């Protein structure tokens, strides 16, 4: 059981430019202090509503954005991890820690290191129509990572493309077609093939089934599970669809306005959600059973803007359990037992 990805205090701010000289007047705090670990071989679900920063988090891990602050450790061997953890607690300013970080912290990688990293981490986008170049043949689309990273080209690349195409369930003829000749589900399979052709270790799935039909969704999700077992992949499954996340993920984290408010094993979270936001979120999912109807919506109001998040706990304006302390201090993630971490003063009064 080793950790593949370890994120420490990751922040990503987007500047809001204003004024005559287009200076940065404010920051959209898309990801504001996230620290999680993803185990090798698991499917880590990341849940939240629009604007909570889950997509930004995924793309920042992938280094499609440069993190504003924080560290991302990818594929670090176990003993080094322990050393880093120990040094962080004991001597945060040591040179050894800095050198270790330089070596393993991918948030500072550039050039060739970054290119080698791309081989190991990939992403599948939400909308297969816009994530595939409409003027390229499927063969070229899938072969692009191979060519760009220098893994293979020409005939050898074609062989690898064929292999991965067949694995995702498309025929050989699909190679010589344009994306618009396929249906949505097939296009998403092409996107999956493109992500997997360079045999990555870590794949970020950014709402891969939202733009696809309901009947195709199940096929794609089964494909994901099969591929994970066969290639030993680690997934980060970003979604706002809780029912799918419940079925496919091993562990789930819930994000609100740039911060993780709760994370645990899947059954734990869905059976016993502790954070008020998690409870409201899970209660809002419409249950396909007409005998169980709810009259009032579990959560009122709207998500505040990430430019100016509320002080203290970000959820306090909409929280039914808000107390005075929630308006002043930000709750940290604390262990509530059974690998269940929550950031809420109302849940863990003694620990905060």
């Amino acid at each position, binding site marked *: 059981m080793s950790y593949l990805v370890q994120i420490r205090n990751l922040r990503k701010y987007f500047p809001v430019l204003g004024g005559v000289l287009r200076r940065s007047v404010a920051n959209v705090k898309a990801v504001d202090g996230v620290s999680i670990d993803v185990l090798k071989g698991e499917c880590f679900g990341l849940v939240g*509503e629009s604007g909570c920063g889950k997509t930004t988090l995924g793309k920042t891990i992938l280094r499609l954005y440069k993190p504003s602050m924080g560290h991302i450790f990818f594929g670090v061997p176990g003993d080094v991890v322990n050393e880093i953890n120990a040094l962080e607690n004991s001597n945060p300013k040591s040179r050894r820690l800095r050198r270790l970080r330089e070596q393993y912290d991918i948030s500072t990688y550039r050039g060739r290191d970054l290119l080698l990293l791309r081989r190991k981490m990939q992403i599948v986008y939400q909308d297969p129509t816009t994530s595939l170049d409409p003027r390229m043949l499927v063969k070229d689309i899938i072969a692009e990572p191979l060519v760009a990273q220098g893994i293979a080209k020409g005939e050898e690349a074609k062989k690898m493309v064929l292999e991965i195409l067949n694995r995702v369930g498309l025929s050989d003829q699909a190679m010589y077609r344009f994306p618009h000749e396929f249906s949505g589900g097939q296009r998403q399979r092409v996107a999956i093939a493109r992500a997997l052709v360079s045999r990555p270790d870590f794949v970020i799935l950014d709402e891969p089934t939202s733009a696809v039909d309901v009947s195709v969704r199940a*096929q794609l999700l089964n494909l994901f599970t099969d591929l994970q077992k066969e290639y030993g992949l680690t997934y980060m499954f970003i979604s706002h669809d809780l029912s*799918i996340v419940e079925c496919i993920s091993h562990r789930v984290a819930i994000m609100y306005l740039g911060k993780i408010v709760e994370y645990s094993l899947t059954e734990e979270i869905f059976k016993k959600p502790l954070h008020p936001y998690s409870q409201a979120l899970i209660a809002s999912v*419409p249950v396909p059973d*007409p005998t169980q109807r709810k009259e009032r919506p579990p959560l009122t109001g709207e998500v505040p803007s990430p430019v100016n998040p509320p002080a203290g706990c970000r959820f306090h304006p909409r929280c039914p359990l808000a107390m005075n302390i929630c308006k002043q201090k930000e709750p940290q993630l604390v262990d509530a037992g059974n690998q269940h971490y929550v950031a809420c003063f109302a849940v863990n009064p003694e620990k905060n």
Partner: protein
Amino acid sequence: MSLATVVEVKDLKVNFYTYAGVVEALDGVNVSLREGEILGLVGETGSGKSVTSLSVMMLVPPPGRIEGGAIYVQNDSGREDVLLMNDASLRSMRGKDIAMIFQEPRAYLNPVYTVEDQISEVILVHRKPEFLKNALEVLKKKRRGGTVEASNYRRMLRNPRSLGVRFIQKFSSKKTLKNEVRKEVTKVLKSVEIPDPERVCRMYPHELSGGMAQRVLIAMALACNPKVLIADEPTTNLDVTVQAQILTLVRLLKRDFKSSILYITHDLGVVAQLCDRVAVMYAGNVVETADVFEIFGSPFHPYTRALLESIPNPEKGFKSIPGIVPGLINPISGCRFRDRCSYAMEICQKVKPPFLEVKKDHFAACYLYGGSQ
């Protein structure tokens, strides 16, 4: 049938004439919306649910054409066939008797007009005489009944289509009328539970969040108190918590405004939470129609059953329906679901099953339940 049907679609056939061929989008669709109920129209992409709703308003875009059937709508002058209406009656029907809300709210709001401008446009198109009279009343109360403005209003009331009046409309100040309409707009925005309606009135669509924009769209649809509301997947693009709020709002509309709502969706959870009756569509046909408890409790058609089984379940994993939706150009003969149906029989390949009442008020189109004479 004790409840009157407000909209009845009978045997509707719609074809799309494209470069690639003739797409038989709807092939004899039968849907009936009863008074005061929420009917859920469920189906995947390509099943024809959006085309059905657009046909009711005669808004099917070219190269689509309605080729057969009838759509009966209950309006002031009784039961009329929409397909035979002339342009003027259609225009007066749209927005007033039947209103529609769509999936992506910000795409259906004009980005260069404020919320107030857009809702007042809807109000003025259909309810202008009423507001002109109100404006005149207000002016009379303020003892300005003899001014130019008041006489303009009187002229607009008397002869709305004359050239002189239309000129006046463009260039005169209609402050009182605008104020009256603004009051109504605020009232409508309050009824869809928008906080601080006066501020929202002045906002532009890009300043609104998804949930707010959808409420504004619903407000626009309700501005003229329509009897029928058609909602084409209004919550698909919204977050789950906002969706819960909108669903509550829709239930409120049914209760307070007594509207009949045709709610199109592909999410069975929403259907279970919201709808009174459900119609399931597949590849251009309605395959089953029943009360919501019936559909979830004892579904008849194999497609309905497969849909219910494909709902993700943590214990059972994902069960998908094998195969893909058939193409609608040169559609296959007989029942269009037969290639994916585990109960397909020989007769299913030859003739399309008729839409029969299998149980009380529970219709299905499948040879498993008869119809194969």
